[in-house]
């Protein structure tokens, strides 16, 4: 391959662009507020945390399910922003990393100077069912009529196939869920902080077999956000920041796989690690998109932490708690923090930022220099369509 080919294939780095001010509007099980309230709270927190004037925010990335019929466009009028870059990113569990990528490129190109990235949703008795029933045309026509199990059922089919293909057991899934609860007990932002043992996990009621209660995230309300700007601007503002060493996304990967035993990461992970200049062994913590433990295992495989199909052996070999051999979902992940809709696509990112900024308080991973964050979103029919990942570095 000529050097010219390599130049056209590898994307520019994210040098000079940084991430600042991870914020969270605390999650709650249910809320009477609308999604815009949660998003506005996150925006306010970004302004308060950064000292950036509201009019200086000239880029905005927004993700939400329950903001509809409004989008990022309506939200600008609601909160009085006049951005010159505006992104509406309905990509579920991948939306945080995709927002990071869009915002970083806008800042590098000079299209915007300070980009606020926010995601959030409300939750009430009707919102979740409405979301599932109208999630997509394929889902509405060809999934929901078959028992209306929602993502629990769709991912149960993948989990069943994965267990059959790899020998993964409920104990393997449970080990991840229990480790995340252990981590959550050190995170005041986590909604689920009661002790969870492997025996509790195994004894839980079935939801969509092989998934039982503690395999499934709890829908809730909340919002997360962060700012993207140049390193120079962050220094001028006196803000601590995190570097973006590499980032990838891929949509509708491997469409010919009959059952989705891999996400899209395998297509781009070499580019990710190459761009980052480090490898899987060089990160001190990993945040996966954990709507179900089996999906975390697909990410370990897809991102090169272990071979394809070797997820179970990898899980049996490691300790996934904050102080363990492979610190994973160090704030508790969605399984213990709750899934605040689209904010689930930000949760791993803001947690990784807090770890690299040294702001993770009693759950701080020692010597955290590099973090891998991955996202996975949008089960349009039989699989999640959006895969994304980022490698972040301490400044």
């Amino acid at each position, binding site marked *: 391959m000529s050097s010219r080919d390599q130049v056209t294939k590898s994307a520019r780095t994210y040098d000079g662009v940084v991430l600042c001010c991870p914020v969270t509007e605390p999650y709650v099980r249910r809320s009477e507020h609308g999604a815009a309230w949660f998003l506005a709270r996150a925006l306010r927190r970004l302004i308060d945390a950064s000292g950036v004037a509201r009019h200086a925010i000239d880029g905005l990335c927004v993700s939400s399910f329950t903001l509809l019929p409004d989008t990022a466009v309506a939200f600008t009028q609601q909160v009085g922003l006049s951005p010159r870059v505006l992104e509406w990113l309905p990509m579920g569990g991948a939306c945080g990393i995709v927002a990071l990528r869009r915002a970083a490129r806008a800042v590098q190109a000079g299209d915007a100077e300070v980009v606020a990235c926010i995601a959030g949703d409300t939750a009430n008795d009707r919102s*979740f*069912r409405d979301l*599932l*029933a109208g999630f997509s*045309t*394929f889902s509405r*026509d*060809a*999934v*929901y*009529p*078959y*028992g*209306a*199990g*929602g993502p*629990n*059922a*769709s991912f*149960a*089919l*993948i989990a*069943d*196939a994965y267990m*059959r293909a790899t020998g993964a057991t409920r104990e393997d899934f449970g080990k991840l869920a229990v480790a995340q609860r252990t981590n959550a007990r050190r995170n005041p932002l986590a909604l689920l902080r009661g002790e969870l043992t492997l025996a509790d996990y195994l004894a839980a*009621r*079935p*939801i*969509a*077999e*092989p*998934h039982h209660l503690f395999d499934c995230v709890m829908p809730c309300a909340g919002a997360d956000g962060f700012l993207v700007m140049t390193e120079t601007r962050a220094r001028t503002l006196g803000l601590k920041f995190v570097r973006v060493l590499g980032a990838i996304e891929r949509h509708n990967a491997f469409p010919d796989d*009959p*059952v989705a035993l891999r996400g899209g990461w395998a297509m781009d992970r070499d580019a990710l690690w190459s761009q980052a200049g480090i490898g899987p062994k060089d990160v001190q913590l990993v945040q996966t998109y954990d709507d179900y433990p089996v999906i975390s295992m697909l990410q370990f495989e897809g991102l090169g932490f272990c071979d394809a199909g070797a997820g179970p052996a990898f899980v049996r070999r490691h300790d996934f708690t904050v102080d363990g051999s492979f610190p994973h979902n160090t704030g508790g992940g969605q399984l213990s923090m709750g899934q605040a809709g689209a904010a689930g696509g930000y949760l791993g990112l803001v947690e990784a930022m807090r770890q690299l900024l040294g702001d993770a308080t009693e759950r701080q991973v020692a010597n955290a220099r590099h973090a891998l964050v991955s996202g996975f979103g949008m089960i349009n*029919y*039989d699989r999640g369509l959006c895969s994304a990942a980022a490698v972040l570095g301490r400044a």
Partner: protein
Amino acid sequence: MIKLQRCADCGAAQYPPREFCGACLSDRAAWETADSLPGQVLACTTLHHSNEPAFRPRLPLKVGLVHLDAGPVLICFVMRAAAGDAVNVRVGPDDLLEAIG
């Protein structure tokens, strides 16, 4: 009768249905009918919870992922079959697809 879309231009079968061929983007996605369609169960789940109250009296419900011999993968109710089994997919009394081993 069960209906499956097949492209009149490239011959690809597809499911879920759409107004064009997802393989070649032809707009001649035509309907083929059959009494049932053969396939293999790739995976199964047993639902103990449903988001729709109307399904709740029928729980637990067995749902599967079936790889049709014709190519597409579909989600349907599974009556008497397990993962790995060869099945026939037909339209059940409620107009929904079901796999019979």
